[in-house]
C-alpha cells in the first residue's frame, strides 16, 4: 500500500526522477536510438506501450507470488513475463497493424533487454503501488523515457551539422549531453511534492 497521489507518481516518474536521466535506466536504447527524431519517437512509443502492458502483468504476478508465498520467483518470473509480453505484443501488432509493426518492429526485441521495463516492475512492487498507481507509474516512466529520448534526438540531429571535435564524437558526446540534460532536469526537484 502506498498513498502517493496519482499526479505525484506521474510527475515523479516522468520528470523529477526521470528513468533515464536520474536512474540511468534504459541507457542502452537511449544511447542507441537517439540519433534520429523519427526512430526516437517510435522507440519511445513502443517503450510506453510495453511498459503499460508489463506493468499490469507484473502487478498480477506480484499478487500471485504473494498468494503462493514465493517471493524468490519474483525476478525470474518478471523477466520471463516481460520477454514473452514483448513477443506477444510483437505478434499482436504484426497481426493487427502491419504498418505499426513496420514502424515499431525492430525496436520490440530491443525492449526485452531494456532495463527500464524490468526496473519499472521491480519499483512498483517495492513501492507497493496498487493497480491504478502502477499504471500511472508506467505511463509516467514511459513518457519520461520518451521525453529524454526525444530531447536527446533533437540535440543530436542538430549536432550532425556541427563541427564537433573528432575525439568527442560518439558515445562520449552523447553522455556529456545526457549529463547536461540531467543537470537541467534537476530543476524539477520537488515539483511532484
Amino acid at each position, binding site marked *: *500500500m502506498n498513498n*502517493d497521489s496519482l499526479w505525484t507518481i506521474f510527475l515523479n516518474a516522468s520528470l523529477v526522477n526521470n528513468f533515464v536521466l536520474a536512474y540511468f535506466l534504459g541507457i542502452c536504447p537511449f544511447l542507441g536510438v537517439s540519433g534520429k527524431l523519427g526512430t526516437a519517437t517510435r522507440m519511445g512509443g513502443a517503450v510506453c506501450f510495453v511498459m503499460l502492458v508489463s506493468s499490469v502483468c507484473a502487478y498480477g504476478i506480484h499478487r500471485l507470488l504473494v498468494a503462493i508465498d514465493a517471493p524468490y520467483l519474483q525476478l525470474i518470473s518478471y523477466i520471463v513475463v516481460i520477454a514473452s509480453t514483448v513477443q506477444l505484443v510483437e505478434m499482436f501488432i504484426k497481426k493487427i497493424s502491419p504498418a505499426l509493426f513496420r514502424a515499431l518492429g525492430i525496436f520490440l526485441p530491443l525492449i526485452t533487454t531494456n532495463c527500464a521495463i524490468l526496473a519499472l516492475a521491480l519499483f512498483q512492487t517495492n513501492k507497493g503501488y496498487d493497480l491504478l498507481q502502477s499504471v500511472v507509474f508506467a505511463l509516467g516512466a514511459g513518457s519520461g523515457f520518451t521525453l529524454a529520448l526525444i530531447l536527446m534526438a533533437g540535440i543530436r540531429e542538430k549536432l550532425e551539422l556541427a563541427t564537433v571535435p573528432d575525439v568527442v564524437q560518439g558515445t562520449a558526446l552523447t553522455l556529456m549531453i545526457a549529463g547536461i540534460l540531467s543537470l537541467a532536469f534537476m530543476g524539477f526537484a520537488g515539483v511532484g511534492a
Partner: protein
Amino acid sequence: MPADRSQSPPASWPLYRALVGVGVVCGLLIVSVFVLTGPVIARNEAAALQQAVFRVLPGAVAKASLALGEDGHFRPAAADDAAHQMVHAGYDANGELVGVAIEAQGMGYQDVIRLLYGYAPQAQAIVGMQVLASKETPGLGDKIEKDPAFNANFRALAVPLSADGLAPRQPIEAVKSGTKTRPSQIDGITGATISSKAVAAILRQSSTRWVPVVYRLQAELAQQGGPDAGQ
C-alpha cells in the same frame, strides 16, 4: 522463441527437455539459496530494525512489534501485517514501556523519505528520529540524516494532545534555523529548507494519526511488553 520458422520444424522433445531441464536446475538453485539465506536475512532485518528502534527510543533494550487490529486494539504483529499498521513498542531493562517507534514516509525534495521516530506517551513528546531511506541532495538535503543540530530537535519534540485527547494541540512545524520558539517546532537546516519541512510534514501527518491512539492505549502497550519482549 520465434514460433514460425519456415525450415523443417524441430522435434519438440529436445526443446521441452531443455527448457524443463534448465527450469528444474534453476528452480532448485533458487530455492536452496533462498532456504539457506532466508533465516540469515530475516535475522539481519530484525537486528537492523531493533537497532533503529533502540536508537529512536533511548533507554529501550527490548522491543515488541505490534499491529493495530480491526477492533482498535494492539496485538502482536504477524508476518503479513502491513507496515503502516504497525508500531514497535520499546521497553527498558525493567520491562517498562519507554515509547513506541513508528515508521512514516512522505515526499521529500527528490523522492520519498522514510523515517522511524520514537514517541514517548508519558512525556507526550517525540524522543528520537532516524531517517531510514532518502534520496535528498547529498551535502544539503541529506543533512536531515546527519546534521547533529537538526537531530537535536528530535530529542524532545513536544506533541501535546488537545483536551479531548483526539488530536495534537500544536501541530509539528519546521521554522527557519534559529527561530524555534515552541517545543513543537523544528529548527530547520539552512539551505535545506524543503527537506527539513518535508520531515516536519511527515512527522505531523503520522503523529496526528498515531499519537492519540498510542496515548489512549498506552496501558495496553505497557502490558504487551511482557515475557515476549525483544521478539
